[in-house]
C-alpha cells in the first residue's frame, strides 16, 4: 500500500524516527515540517541515525542540495509527492500483450470451431 498523501499523527506508537524511516524508503517527494514552522519539500535520499546528531539528507523539488537536516529540527514529515514506485506500467504492458495474444488467437478459434 502506498503512503502517498499520508500525514502522520505522531504518538508514542508512531515516533518521528519511524516516520523518517518510512520517508527514507518512500520513492516520492515529501514535505519536511520543521520545528520552526518552515517547510522543505523534496526527496529524502538518506538518513543516518547512528551518529551523535541523527540527520536526514534531501534534494529539494528544484533539485538543489543535498541539504542536511538534523532530526532535532524536524517536527513531522508529510508524504505529499507522487509515489513513483506504484506505477502500473508493467501491468498495463501485460494487459496489452494478453489482449494482443487473444486477438491473434480469435480467428483460429473461429476456424477450428
Amino acid at each position: 500500500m502506498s503512503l502517498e498523501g499520508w500525514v502522520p499523527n505522531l504518538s508514542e506508537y508512531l515516533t518521528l524516527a519511524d516516520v523518517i524511516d518510512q520517508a527514507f524508503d518512500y520513492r516520492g517527494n515529501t514535505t519536511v515540517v520543521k520545528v520552526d514552522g518552515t517547510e522543505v519539500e523534496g526527496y529524502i535520499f538518506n538518513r543516518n541515525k547512528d551518529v551523535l546528531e541523527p540527520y536526514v539528507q534531501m534534494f529539494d523539488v528544484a533539485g538543489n542540495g543535498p541539504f542536511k537536516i538534523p532530526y532535532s529540527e524536524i517536527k513531522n514529515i508529510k508524504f505529499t509527492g507522487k509515489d513513483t514506485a506504484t506505477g502500473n506500467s508493467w501491468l498495463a504492458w501485460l494487459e496489452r500483450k494478453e489482449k494482443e495474444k487473444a486477438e491473434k488467437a480469435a480467428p483460429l478459434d473461429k476456424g477450428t470451431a
Partner: protein
Amino acid sequence: MVPVSQMWAVASYVLRQKLRGRKRYPLVLMLEPLFRCNLTCAGCGKIQYPAQILRKELSVEECLRAVDECGVPVVSIPGGEPLMYTQIGELVDVLVKRKKYVYLCTNAILLKEKLEEGVFTPSKYLSFSIHMDGLREEHDEAVCRDGIYDEAVEAITEALRRGFRVTTNTTLFDGANAARVREFFDEMMRLGVEGMMLSPGYNYSKAPDQEHFLRRTRTRELFSKILSNPQKHWKFNQSPLFLQFLMGKQDYECTPWGNPTFNIFGWQRPCYLLQEGYAESFQDLMENTRWEQYGRKSGNEKCQDCMVHCGYEPTAVDHTFNSWKGFKDTVVATLTGKL
C-alpha cells in the same frame, strides 16, 4: 572469455590486496552517473524517483573522484541508461586513458546513434555490455516494449563491425525456459559477442514485478538446466566459479563490498541492490557499514534468496586466488569449458 590482459589486471590487483593484508577490498565499481532511463523494465527497481532526481547527473569530476577513491581495476557504468548521460563520451575517454576496464551497461537503444556520432573509440579497455534478457519474445517482454531486441541486435552488429568489444548481460527471472535460454546463447555467439554475463534477478522492493524473482532452490535448478553440458562455442565474460555457484556446485557467502556503488546520492550502503543509506566517502562506506548484517549467514531476510553477481562474483574471484582448489577449479573450467 575475459581477455588475458584484463585477467592479468584483475589478478595482479587482487594479489596486491592480499599482499597488503586487506580483508575487504572492492573489485568492480558500479558507477551510476544518472537514474534516468528510456525503458521501464518490469524487474528494475533503480529508476523510480521524482523528476528532479531523474534530471540530476554526476559530473565527470565526481565520477573520477569515486574511481580514484576506491582504486578498482574495473568500472561498470549502469544507471539509468548511461547513453543518456550527457558526458558519457568524455567519462569513458578519461577512464580508458587511465587504463580502467570499462563495462558500459546499456539497453543499446541509443548505441547506433552514438557510434555514428563518433562518441566512442574502440579500445581493449572499453566493452559495451548489452542488456539482453533472452530471445526476441522474452527480451521485449522483460523490457516491456516491442522492437527493442531487434534494435539491440542491430546495435551489437554495428558495434562489432566498428571493432568494439561487445558483451551481453542477461538477468533471468522465474519462468525462464532453459531451452530458450540455450538457444539465446547460441544466437549471441552467432552474432559474435565476446562473452555473456548471467545473473538471477534481485527482488527489488520498488520493481513493478514482484512475483517473478527466483528463490534460491529454483535458481540452482534453472541454472543447472541451462549450464549443464554447455556448448563449446559459448563464452562467458565472468568467473566460471560464479556460474558453478549458480548451479549449486559451489557454496559461497556474499561479498557485499565487492562491487561498491556510487551515484548522485553518494556511496550506497551496503551494496548495489540494497539501499539502506549513503556514505559520504568510500572510506566511510568501508569502515562504518555494519557488514555483519548482510549476506546469507547474517540471517538478513533481504539477502536469503539473493545470488546476484554483484555480491557473489567477487567471492568467486577471491576463491580463485585464495586457495589452490579455487585456482585449479578456475583453470580447469576455463580451459575445458566445463562447468
